């Protein structure tokens, strides 16, 4: 097991041969403190939930399960990712088969990479499942809201840092440009970032508060 953990550590450092950079088109401009009411914050949250619960996002936020999900026009109703894929504790499949075996790293400027139906989608960073704490698949709006506002389960981030995370983590950008016949996440990345910022300024309210 020690050998496996050592190999996984080495793997994470070696496999990232694609560049990671921020999307220059996304602006991180939080509203002024006190300018967003709780009601407006809850409206922003409802749109955030639309995104978080959408298959382009939730299918890889499977929590304790290390099985990514598939859904969309190609698959009918949602089902477990084919090929017996298990992302493991590493969340990158290091224990069995790496996500990046098929979801290879692509150049940022190669916009035609995801145009082929049924081919594995790709981004300019290592494909992976979300951390176990970020459990969204099949969860309620209250459950996701509480997870996202709790630093112990959101990667120790405030709302501004969540917005910056959205800007920098290119795998998240894929949700709005999935290619093929995949349905993109609702709204736009910029609108989603704006909602996160507004929700934060409103005090990160949740529906059942």
């Amino acid at each position, binding site marked *: 097991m020690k050998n496996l953990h050592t190999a996984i550590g080495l793997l994470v450092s070696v*496999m990232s041969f694609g560049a990671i950079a921020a999307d220059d088109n996304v602006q991180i401009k939080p509203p002024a403190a006190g300018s967003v009411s709780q009601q407006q914050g809850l409206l922003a949250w409802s749109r955030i939930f639309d995104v978080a619960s959408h298959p382009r996002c939730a299918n890889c936020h499977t929590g304790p399960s290390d099985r990514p999900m598939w859904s969309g026009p190609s698959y009918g109703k949602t089902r477990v990712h084919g090929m017996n894929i298990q992302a493991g504790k590493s969340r990158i499949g290091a224990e*069995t*088969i790496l996500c990046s075996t098929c979801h290879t790293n692509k150049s940022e400027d*190669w916009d035609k990479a995801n145009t082929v139906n*049924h081919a594995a989608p790709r981004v300019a960073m290592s494909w992976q499942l979300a951390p176990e704490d970020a459990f969204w698949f099949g969860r309620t709006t209250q459950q996701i809201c509480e997870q996202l506002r709790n630093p112990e389960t959101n990667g120790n981030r405030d709302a501004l840092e969540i917005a910056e995370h959205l800007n920098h983590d290119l795998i998240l950008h894929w949700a709005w440009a999935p290619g093929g016949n995949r349905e993109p996440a609702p709204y736009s990345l910029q609108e989603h970032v704006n909602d996160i910022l507004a929700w934060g300024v409103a005090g990160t309210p949740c529906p059942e508060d």
Partner: protein
Amino acid sequence: MKVSHMEITVNDQTYSVDVEPEMPLLWVLRDELGITGPKYGCGIAQCGACTVHVNGYAVRSCQLAVGDLGSSKVSTIEGLGTPDSLHVVQESWIEHQVAQCGYCQSGQIMQAASLLSTNPNPSDDQIDAAMSGNLCRCGTYPRIKAAVKSAAKKLQGS
């Protein structure tokens, strides 16, 4: 997309190629370099026949643009072992006479070698998970699994 001149390292040899950066690595290997161990099966990462190693880890070469390789090193079945010094997975494959038609076997072997490089003592379930993306129309799966387990035992020294 314009043709670019680039150098890539395959099986410890450096090659110069003039190709479009978006060309899949599999095409470069087979059509430009004549390295035909990796096979074309589906072209969309659904079968595993084109599996090679990039920096030691399995990658479906039909999905990786050659321009995205950078300085990464590619290994194909031709570079895994030699007739005089087989890779432990190749030894086990011969012992278990895994191949039937053989078309998928280079991909199967490269996938198995990648698994054992990161997880030298995989469980049965882990072997199944790791090898499930490599299809064999002849149905040699029982022998594939036996050979992977045999190779793992050799790596454990028993």
